[in-house]
């Protein structure tokens, strides 16, 4: 690793974070808070007997949706400014390699995401506290697994943008992968179905093994199936899974970004 490389990555990351704050990406949190607090008042009335559970489930869903929106918005803003406003040319005139730049961008967007998730978690905890809803360790594990899934989304979105000819194509592709990634658990059942034709099986087989399996990060749909808390070995396994996929995505992304004509 070249000297001071990590410092350069951090500098890019800090710049990304500052830019996202400057562009008011974090305003999304106000919408989140409003949706959740407003929703909690409605749920109180509409869901007798299951208010606490519904409120927390709405919180999880909002957290995932708003987290996804935050990262997509951050990537869009950053990449748009780089390409359309030629900011990237200015950055790359400095002694910084393209791979460091991409890694810095990944780290910066990760910071934005973590900040957003942290604030959203606190809002949910506040609502749970005032609503006298008990949250256990599962809450932290669900948020953690959700964050892993979103981190992986950042990595492959950056990889797609580096490969794709333009920003919109990259974002659309990554959204596709995000959607297909949630399907993978069900794809296996379709592959095993004897009625599925061979050609389709092959196509699905490729998709099944190439796209990341996002359903493994979806602990919120399994929360009521466990007594006590989630198995820690499973949490370690999904952490490893996310780390490997993120590494591969970033590797592909940096290779593509190095060769990309700007």
């Amino acid at each position, binding site marked *: 690793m070249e000297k001071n490389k990590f410092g350069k990555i951090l500098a890019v990351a800090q710049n990304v974070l500052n830019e996202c704050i400057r562009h008011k990406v974090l305003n999304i949190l106000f919408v989140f808070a409003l949706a959740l607090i407003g929703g909690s008042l409605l749920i109180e009335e509409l869901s007798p*007997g299951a208010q606490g*559970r*519904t409120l927390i489930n*709405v919180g999880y869903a909002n957290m995932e949706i708003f987290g996804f929106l935050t990262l997509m918005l951050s990537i869009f803003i950053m990449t748009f400014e780089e390409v359309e406003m030629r900011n990237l040319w200015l950055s790359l005139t400095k002694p910084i390699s393209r791979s460091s730049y991409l890694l810095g961008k990944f780290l910066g967007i990760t910071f934005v995401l973590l900040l957003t998730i942290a604030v959203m978690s606190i809002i949910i905890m506040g609502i749970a506290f005032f609503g006298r809803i008990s949250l256990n360790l599962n809450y932290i594990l669900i948020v953690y697994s959700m964050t892993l899934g979103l981190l992986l989304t950042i990595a492959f979105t950056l990889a797609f943008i580096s490969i794709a000819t333009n920003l919109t194509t990259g974002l659309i592709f990554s959204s596709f992968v995000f959607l297909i990634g*949630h399907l993978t658990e069900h794809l296996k059942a379709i592959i095993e179905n004897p009625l599925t034709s061979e050609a389709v099986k092959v*196509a699905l087989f490729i998709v099944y093994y190439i796209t990341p399996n996002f359903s493994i990060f979806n602990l919120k749909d399994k929360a009521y199936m466990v007594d006590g808390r989630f198995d820690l070995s499973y949490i370690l396994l999904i952490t490893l899974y996310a780390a490997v996929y993120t590494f591969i995505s970033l590797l592909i992304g940096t290779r593509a970004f190095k060769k990309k004509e700007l």
Partner: protein
Amino acid sequence: MTLKSCLILGFSLLFLIVTTVTIGNSTFYGKNFKSFPFKESKKDPFYVFLSSISGFRILVSDFLWMDAVQYLGDLENGKENYKQIYPKARDIITLDPNFTYPYIAVSGILFFELNEKDKAIEFIKYGIEQNPNYWQLSLYLAAYTYSKDDNLRMVVLNIKSAIKQENHPPMLERILGSIYLKLAKKEPKNKDFWMGEAIKLWAEMYEHPSEPENRVYAEEKLRKAGILKN
């Protein structure tokens, strides 16, 4: 055509195939659950499938519960004797079999309000099967079986299963003791057996009381039975 364009085209085609095939095979999800909820499920299995793949299965079941509550709140639906409540409840538990409140609420409505006792019992039994550690369901089943055909043996069975759970209310143990006494009176042939069961229960309550009141109660009963002496 460049390699990149070919890749993009290929990926789009693959996505199209995956979507088509997945939608076409949506019933497989239903097949996995066909044993109970799908027989009379009101919603199409595709609806269930979609909520599952979107990653918001539990949330959709919460929304369906809200819908069911609104249905019950509308007096107009009373004219048709709230006949849709059962299929609605089945939809909810299809999505989340561990959502315990609909089992209690809907079985209660079916049993006491709509006089569909067998349906209510079948529904709560399914709930117990899915949530064996949730003692309230066993208690409700005990109440239904007693109310339906005065079946005290079933009540005993269900209360015994409820008090096995750590968080059961201590009062249940005292109720079980009273039911043993009632059974001893009701079945003179098995009087010794039921009295033996009652004494075993009180001895356990006396030795390991789940609350101080239970120990006092057990002590009093054991003295009355002549087991404990001054």
